[in-house]
């Protein structure tokens, strides 16, 4: 019986959370000083009072904040995200145009981190307190602590400038290649550096998480039993330790999945990746409220959605969790 009750409870919770986030975002965005009309006039290098008034009127910026909030929420409920002040295009169009690029980048980084991270973490745990373990942990710490844009620039310097192996920025070659396979290869080549840059941070997290979790599990009684049975060490590590140790990793993977939309702003900027992160970054500086709120809303929806998936995954992995939440 619990799946139906769970679904209903979850849906109610999700709607409330998204609505609260929408209102909160609206208020927070408006707290920052600045007026989109003035920014637009500034970009045009023109000081014309009529122009400012017109912009404010076109987008109802001249009305009281409470009324604006009400209008916005009403529109969001009907899935209308409004229009950009600057380009005057529908926000939903702008978001969906950019979404594939972002999902490709964050998805690739996600897979890369999920495959490499636990592997290296397991390796470090199995070779705990050796030179290899120390080397891995130092590397993980470095990539965890180094600002992501700097890692990106160093990778560009090494792989693009010095070696000339990979393109430094963009998603496609300047001279368009012909043929589906050639185009796929072209995108993959462009994807390599940004995906690795973004992935390395998460790799570092997974390495540390897996190592700690495995070392903790390794001291449990049932592992000793497995060893006493005479199982080879690799069997013990994979079948007994890693499996149990995976639960915190699943939890974190769920958290990371929530960042698939909004988590790549910096990397997208360094690598000129045409995704949503950059759209948000620009919108923030231009006080293009509708676009910014659209990105926030989409990110919030992703977080809520993946939290639900994680909940389900953990429930399946560990029946003790949430029996009667």
């Amino acid at each position, binding site marked *: 019986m619990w799946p139906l009750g769970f679904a209903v409870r979850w849906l109610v919770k999700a709607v409330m959370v998204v609505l609260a986030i929408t209102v909160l975002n609206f208020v927070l965005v408006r707290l920052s000083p600045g007026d989109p009309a003035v920014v637009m*006039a500034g*970009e045009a*290098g023109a000081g*014309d009072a009529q122009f400012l008034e017109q912009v404010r009127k076109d987008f109802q910026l001249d009305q009281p904040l409470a009324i604006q909030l009400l209008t916005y929420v009403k529109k969001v409920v009907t899935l209308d995200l409004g229009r*950009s002040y600057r380009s005057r*295009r529908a926000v939903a169009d702008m978001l969906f145009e950019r979404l594939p690029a972002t999902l490709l980048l964050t998805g690739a980084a996600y897979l890369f981190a999920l495959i490499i991270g636990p592997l290296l973490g397991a390796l470090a745990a199995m070779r705990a307190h050796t030179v290899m373990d120390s080397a891995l942990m130092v590397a993980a710490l470095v990539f965890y602590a180094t600002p992501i844009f700097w890692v990106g620039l160093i990778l560009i310097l090494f792989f693009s400038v010095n070696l000339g192996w990979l393109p430094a920025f963009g998603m496609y070659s300047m001279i368009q290649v012909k043929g589906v396979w050639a185009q796929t290869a072209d995108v993959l080549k462009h994807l390599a550096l940004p995906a690795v840059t973004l992935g390395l941070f998460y790799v570092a997290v997974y390495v540390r998480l897996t190592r700690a979790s495995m070392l903790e599990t390794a001291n449990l009684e049932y592992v000793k039993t497995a060893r006493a049975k005479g199982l080879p060490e690799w069997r013990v590590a994979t079948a007994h330790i890693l499996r149990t140790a995976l639960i915190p990793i699943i939890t974190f993977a769920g958290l990371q999945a929530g960042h698939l939309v909004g988590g790549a702003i910096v990397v997208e900027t*360094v690598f000129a990746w045409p*995704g949503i992160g950059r759209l948000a970054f620009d919108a923030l500086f231009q006080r293009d409220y509708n676009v910014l709120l659209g990105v926030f809303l989409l990110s919030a929806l992703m977080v809520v959605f993946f939290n639900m998936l994680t909940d389900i995954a953990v429930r399946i992995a560990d029946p003790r969790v949430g029996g009667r939440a």
Partner: protein
Amino acid sequence: MKLKFTWIGRLVGRFLSICALAIIGVSGASAQQRGGTLNSTLWPEPPGIVIGIHLNAPTLLPSTKIFEGLLTYDFQLNPQPMLAETWKVSDDGLTYTFNLRHNVKWHDGKPFTSKDVVFSLSKFIPEVHPRSKPTFQRAEVTAPDDFTVVIKLKEPYGPMIRSFDAISAPIVPAHIYEGTNFKDNPANRHPTGTGPFKFDEWKSGQYIHLVRNNDYYLQGKPYLDDIYYRFIPDSASRALALEQGEVQLATQNDIELVDVARLAKLSTLDVTTKGWEWGAPISWLEMNLRRKPFNDVRFRKAVMYALDRNFIRNSIFFGVASPATGPIHSSSPFYTSDVQAYPHDVAKAKALLDEMGLKPDGDGVRVKIGLLGLPYGELWDRLSQYIKQALGQVGVEVTIQTADVAGWGNRIANWDVDMSTTYLTTLSDPALGVARSYITENQKKGVLFTNTAGYSNPEVDKLFADAAKEPDQGKRKAMYAKVQKTLVDDVALGWLVELQWPTITSKKLKNVVRNGLGPNDNFSDVYFEK
């Protein structure tokens, strides 16, 4: 003997190769070749590419290839033909007659006629173009026939003849815009112009692609096949792309000045600072004259003496600027250097502050003020730090304040600052781009790029008003000379440097900067040397 022989041989060889180079050079210069794809940087991504509806710098670069004006302007800002083949201004300065080209077609194949010009100048621009609105609101535009346009004014207007370029007065197709909501017309995303390049595609976050207009009215032009304007958000990546030859053109502030000096040394690239005469940007320190101590001219003079403009030019702008002497850019025909000079003189600055009664306290501080720096990157941060240091030396303690672009604009527009740094294009005529920062009438709270400093002088107001209406060029010059003298005496603003935007091109790319509009010209003459 052998050694000597090879030495002579080498000399002869070198001589021959020089001759060969010279011949290639001469023949290369005469033959302008068809073909090639130009890749240019463009940053930030513009919000739209119809001039007038949007006027951002990155809007103008691609859209000036699509849309044209009646005229364009040479390095001295003299008018040159574009859509108008010939033109005449009546002696009283009240009637402008333009004879249009006959063989011009819109990119969709429809013929271009005087109807389009009348529509653009009397309906489109006065409604959407915040900068040219005041110019064309005073004009009555009519068309006696399909290829003649007559503009009548009630009183002479000096800047009129310099207001017909593609940026100030783009000619748009009447058959697409007439009777529609101009700003929301779907054609804005797929514009139709008369220029040498047609709009092809805009990939959001990636590039704008323009292709050759095969029906362009100038035979054999343009030379290029197509142009990509690529959005590369990181300035280090932009410099890299130029270095590696992936892009062949970057301009304005696409490249950090610190990189410009480095790129200029590469054998594959050319750097020029010409081509921004039309925009003529000046950077200044704005002091809020509504507040103490800035309302005292002695304080403003002291600030001018305390700042070393040559240092600013050399060490902050890396030589890509020249010290400004006053409100009008030195490339303007109305510029005069005959004004009060403020050479770097710490003693004089201190003496002026003493005279005001601003005595240093125990820590040597006479007065504390705030400085809101232009949030356009490191260069401007360094400028703020220099001003803090230089004024600190004369006992003026500066607190640097920061904001992002929107916050900065908001505070300046609402007069909520002590001092701020900024730059502004002074445009093709003082009546358009200079007067706005000084005349009393233009103190409009809440509006950026008005007289936000709060300067007010009836004599200056009158001179600006009279000069705008004066048809005689010599008399106008004399009036603006007087304006410059007065404003510099009063230190209405603390002019720092005239910016020189660098245009960096591949050595093979020719004719990019051939007049006062520079990279904002239509590129009909640009070609790649093979």
